[in-house]
């Protein structure tokens, strides 16, 4: 159980990577942008991959009537997400310590994982809502209006995950370093659960065996 608790603590601490590395990365390439434009979505705000990418993305988007990319203080998420992450790290570390001291058992580790997964899914859902709004809530005075084959106005929502062609742009959207660290951290808490389960489980099976032979 001690080993499991240490793995739990390490797993929870991996989430701190989100403060150093971006969570998500969206790249936009086109023939006239041989060096693609890109944005890194951090839990604290959005940054350009290169210094002036955000300005240049906004410059392009104004033709199709998209809003400018929000600043950190324009979205509540960038205030709440860091607090949630810090909270989950503290909770995870606390559970690890309590496990180490033998105050709680391994099932709490899985509980943390489930809670984190629910929060993560909620985060992704929120992120997707924002992308949808960003890509489809267009200025009615936009100078370029593209109509889909079915007659509906084209939206410019980047994919939540993966690749999509938007007009002349190749758009890719993939988790970035911070997210990978988070996934690793979450996986470690599952490992912590399994290790904890196994150590207690083998202990009990040993006892069972003893019982059977006595």
């Amino acid at each position, binding site marked *: 159980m001690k080993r499991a608790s240490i793995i739990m603590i390490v797993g929870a601490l991996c989430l701190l990577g989100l403060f150093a590395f971006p969570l998500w990365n969206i790249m936009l390439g086109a023939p006239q942008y041989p*060096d693609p434009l890109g944005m890194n979505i951090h839990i604290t705000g959005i940054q350009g991959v290169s*210094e*002036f990418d955000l*300005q*240049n993305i906004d*410059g392009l988007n104004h*033709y199709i009537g998209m809003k400018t990319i929000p600043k950190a203080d324009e979205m509540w998420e960038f205030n709440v997400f860091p607090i949630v992450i810090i909270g989950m790290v503290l909770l995870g570390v606390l559970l690890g310590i309590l496990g180490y001291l033998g105050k709680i058992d391994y099932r709490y580790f899985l509980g943390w994982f489930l809670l984190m997964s629910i929060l993560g899914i909620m985060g992704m859902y929120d992120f997707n809502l924002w992308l949808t709004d960003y890509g489809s809530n267009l200025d009615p005075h936009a*100078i*370029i209006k593209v109509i889909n084959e079915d007659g509906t106005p084209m939206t410019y929502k980047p994919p939540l995950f993966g690749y999509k062609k938007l007009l002349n742009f190749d758009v890719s959207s993939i988790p970035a370093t911070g997210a990978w660290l988070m996934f690793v951290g979450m996986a470690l808490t599952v490992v912590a659960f399994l290790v904890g389960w196994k150590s207690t489980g083998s202990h009990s099976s040993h006892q069972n065996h003893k019982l059977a032979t006595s």
Partner: protein
Amino acid sequence: MKKYSLYLVAILGSVLFLSGCGDQNGKASSNGALASNNAEKVYVAPGEHDEFYAFMSGGYSGNVAVYGLPSGRMFKEIPVFSQFPTNGYGYSEETKPMLETSFGFIPADDSHHPDISQTNGELDGRWLFINGNNTPRIARIDLKTFETAEIIEVPNSAGNHSSSYITENSEYVVAGTRFSVPIPQRDMPIKDYKGNFKGALSFISVEPETGSMDIKFQLIMPGFNYDLSHPGRGKSHGWFFFTTYNTEEANSLLEVNASQNDKDFIAAVNWKKIEEYVENGGGTMVPANYTHNVYSDETHSATSTMKKEVLTVDPTKVPGAIFFMPTPKSPHGVDVNPTGDYIVGNGKLSADLTVFSFDKMIAAIDGKKFDGEAYGLPILKFEDVLAGQVKSGGLGPLHTEFDGQGNAYTTFFISSEVVKWKVGTWEVIDRKPTFYSVGHCMIPGGNSRKPFGKYLVSMNKITKDRYLPTGPELEHSAQLYDISGDKMELIYDFPTHGEPHYAAAIPASILAPKSQKIYKLAENEHPFATKNVSDARIVHDGNEVHVYMAMIRSHFTPDNIEGIKVGDKVYFHITNHEQDFDVPHGFMMIGQKNSGLLIMPGQTKTSVWEPKQEGVWPFYCTDFCSALHQEMQGYVRVSPAKSNIDLSWSLGE
């Protein structure tokens, strides 16, 4: 096709050329498999980049043109000593000071010899220097931005031809005078030239961090013509070599009178010794009048200051610093090989090349073996300093470059060819014709300790049948030779702009990563910049109107201006708010008398417009910038001089 050179040869009655080159056939190599092989060698596929940047002087265009090698594609023309309507250089208020001289505003010159800055004798790709030949000037081009960053005028000089070569750590760029003149200039009979005219060799220091130039000293030499120069390198670092002609000091019909002496001189100048002399307080500060023009990437503006004195050095006051080496038949080019051991003097009226040994020169100096003196300066004995002669069989040798593998390549103007020979044995290895009348040749890094001996470019004066006729004048022709094998291979020719005298080239791998893509708007310190769109405004000051304008795809802020009156002088100070590579915007205004502007991302430029007629007059962006480029426009309403319409401006109202 051969008729022209044969004709010249016939006139000169040269048997040498006929026997040496009679079997040349320039078009032989353009047949069959060889030709397609050559096509592959120069082909740079779409999207791929050239291996070298070549900077070719534009001669009477006053500019520098940048070409890719091996493709021969022209990338860019850099305005230096001339106005350039393409982007407003020399027309915009910010760049007009670059062309100020002590003679006033001079928007033309004759640019000759570019040279790239060096560190430890190797190209470092920081700056390119080039001389203005006519109104003596030296310019420094910043190779981050490919813009002219500084121009210094050279007083006491005339025909700034033996320039602008640099020493191996870019300590100095030299500006040697071709014409000797009275120093200081004064009213005197021309026939009294001899003994009274002087030749100034100026050593311009280059500040190691910024590149900033300053004339450290001028050597006031005897009244010869100082034709070309080259720095020593390696062991001969610290010396500079200048060819002379007209050691006769004739002042009329020089084609005859300056060709009487069998030998003129190469002047060997120990600049380190003179530097030491100057640093110990030597030399005489004399009154002078010359401009120093500096462009700033922060203010996007140039300033011109007038300098009032210059330090001159009488060479006879610095014993052991200057020696003359007699060199046959009016030497033109003087070139030092990469190791610095040999100095090649090319007598342009001779068939042979004269090669001096630096070691022998030092030994002769140490042994004080002099053959008289000229104006108090010792003349070395020809035989004492001679390393060897290249019996070339060509006629009219001009310039020599080196490949870094112990071979030299000399151009021959009269016999129109490049001759490859071996340094040390002086034997001729190969020769190839040029089309036609070649001046300089250039090997990338050829003026350094580390030549990149893969290509040679010959710069030809006459083009004749090489290209489709386009009227009586054709652009000059450059020819590209593959020199990687034993034999030179002519693989390509391409037209050049103006009259390319000389060129300097550097691997793209050194320059391309340093290239600046935009100017940061946040770092724009132009006094009239509009860094925030909300600061766009118009200020009236007497009859001067200052329009603070911003531009971004695809509009100007403001785009409607009223309250301008006939007789006003309207300054459009326009700031480009783009921060994206290669997205300049242009500005032209109906009736604008100077030039349009091309404004780089993050940059501010100013154009003056003086309305003479009432009306509503449009302006627009000239550089196709987006799908809505045509919509990037605006109007200025011009009212009668006495009207009381208030100044107003708007966008989107």
